[in-house]
């Protein structure tokens, strides 16, 4: 009989694998790897802000929802700066450093609040958002992840071709009548939304690796778009499930195993392709 927490972790891993497996090739093709750094800062700030809200209001979903909101605001801010003519790395740099400053301020406020409410185990929560706590995913977390995840997968599949074409030639697509602004905004929104959605499962640090490496590895292994997306999906799901199965008996954090596993494959495929 499989333990309920393990079943929840497996289902969460599967959903995270599907989401990041689909997103990873887009992140690589559009050159959005740097954007995941901005989402890292946004998620960290959102998590701290969410913890402050939790301490003040006792609302249990505040961390998830506040970090989701902050990440989307930051990502859309980056998209807005790019539309105004900023280079992508400048836009990410400006927003990320601004949010990093706010995070430090947030830490100060959070620690003051924690001192006044020592019965909340929040110090553990900060670490769990950095490393991920897939074994601690609750039924509520899982339901939210699966329902929101299915909606995101549907949107991604519907617009996947348009995301690729817009990334290939935005000017050309605009001249052909395509709404490039909409496609790029939606793509950035999805990167932010998916990051916030899966962060509690995989953790902030691992998120960057799992969002980038499967797409990069797949692009080295194949020259066919469908194969690249398929490989990325298989690789991400496999990584998530394997790391969970290894982590369960050994007690090693699954996010660490996933990072090492993908890193090893990336190095092993280094002689292939150009990604």
């Amino acid at each position, binding site marked *: 009989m499989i333990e309920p927490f393990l079943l929840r972790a497996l289902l969460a891993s599967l959903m995270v694998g599907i989401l990041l497996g689909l997103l990873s090739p887009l992140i690589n093709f559009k050159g959005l790897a740097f954007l995941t750094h901005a989402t890292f800062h946004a998620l960290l700030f959102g998590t701290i802000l969410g913890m402050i809200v939790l301490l003040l209001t006792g609302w249990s979903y505040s961390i998830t929802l506040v970090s989701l909101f902050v990440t989307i605001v930051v990502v859309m801010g980056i998209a807005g700066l790019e539309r105004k003519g900023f280079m992508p790395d400048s836009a990410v740099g400006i927003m990320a450093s601004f949010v990093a400053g706010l995070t430090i301020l947030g830490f100060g406020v959070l620690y003051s609040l924690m001192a006044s409410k020592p019965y909340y185990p929040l110090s553990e929560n900060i670490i769990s958002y950095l490393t991920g706590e897939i074994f601690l995913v609750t039924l509520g977390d899982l339901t939210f992840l699966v329902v929101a995840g299915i909606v995101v997968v549907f949107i991604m599949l519907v617009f996947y071709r348009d995301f690729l074409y817009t990334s290939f030639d935005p*000017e050309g697509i605009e001249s052909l009548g395509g709404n490039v602004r909409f496609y790029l905004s939606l793509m950035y929104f999805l990167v932010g939304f998916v990051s916030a959605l899966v962060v509690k499962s995989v953790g902030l640090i691992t998120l960057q690796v799992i969002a980038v490496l499967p797409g990069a590895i797949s692009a080295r292994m194949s020259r066919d778009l469908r194969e690249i997306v398929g490989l990325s999906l298989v690789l991400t799901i496999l990584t998530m499930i394997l790391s969970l199965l290894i982590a369960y008996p050994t007690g090693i954090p699954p996010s660490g195993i996933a990072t090492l596993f993908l890193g090893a494959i990336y190095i092993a495929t280094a002689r292939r392709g150009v990604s």
Partner: protein
Amino acid sequence: MTAVEAEKLTVLYDGKPALNDITFSLDEGKTLLLLGPNGAGKTTLLRTIACFHREYLGRLLVFGDEPCRKRDLISYVPQSYKLNERIPLTSLDVVVMGSLYRRSLFHLRIDKKMYKKAKNVLNFVGLSGVEKKLFRELSGGQKQRVLLARALMADPKLLLLDEPLSQLDPNARAEVAAVLKKIKSKKGITMIITTHDVNPLIDLGDLVMLLNRRMVAFGRPEQVLQDFVIKSVYGPLAKTVKVGERLYCIIGDTHIYQRDAP
């Protein structure tokens, strides 16, 4: 019918004029070659006509209306170096793009008729057999022809081409020029082409405009491409040469190395 008409057109960037006082008229089916040094405003004018840039003074009409209202009739071919070739799209993928975006917002599946049309258009530009080849693996001339095919998929009435010959070797330039001539003769599409090298396109151009942040000259090739006009924009080394009935412009970067006698 007049395809493009500009009267005292001044294009602005952040309120400052980038291109001044342009007045010209281009009839349907005719080809205009835009010439000028780097920064002269060729691409700016093209992008304004294509409705990418909307900050301008004066009058600009495309088929009798504002450019943005006639976007369905316009196809724009960007410079191929601007494309993100990390994405492994096939030639057919690239051509099919041309027919999608005036129909719907998303494209989960593509109608087989579109693929058939795309193959026909590729055949028209002389590229049958490269459908499944990755775009990034094509030669420069082939890439440019694929982009032309994509532009033709939208059945445009006005084709705007930004430096279609740049970064191509002489053979590839001739290939692309031949396809442009075919488009003109078989499809009768109005074209505006920016170029640094007018020579491969000189037979194609009904009109030539010389730009240098303003309109220096506009008229038939033999009127515009005269020594004193060319020199006023490109400097004293520029000149025109007539070989038989054919006019050649020498306006590119000319390097003269002077060596002291040993």
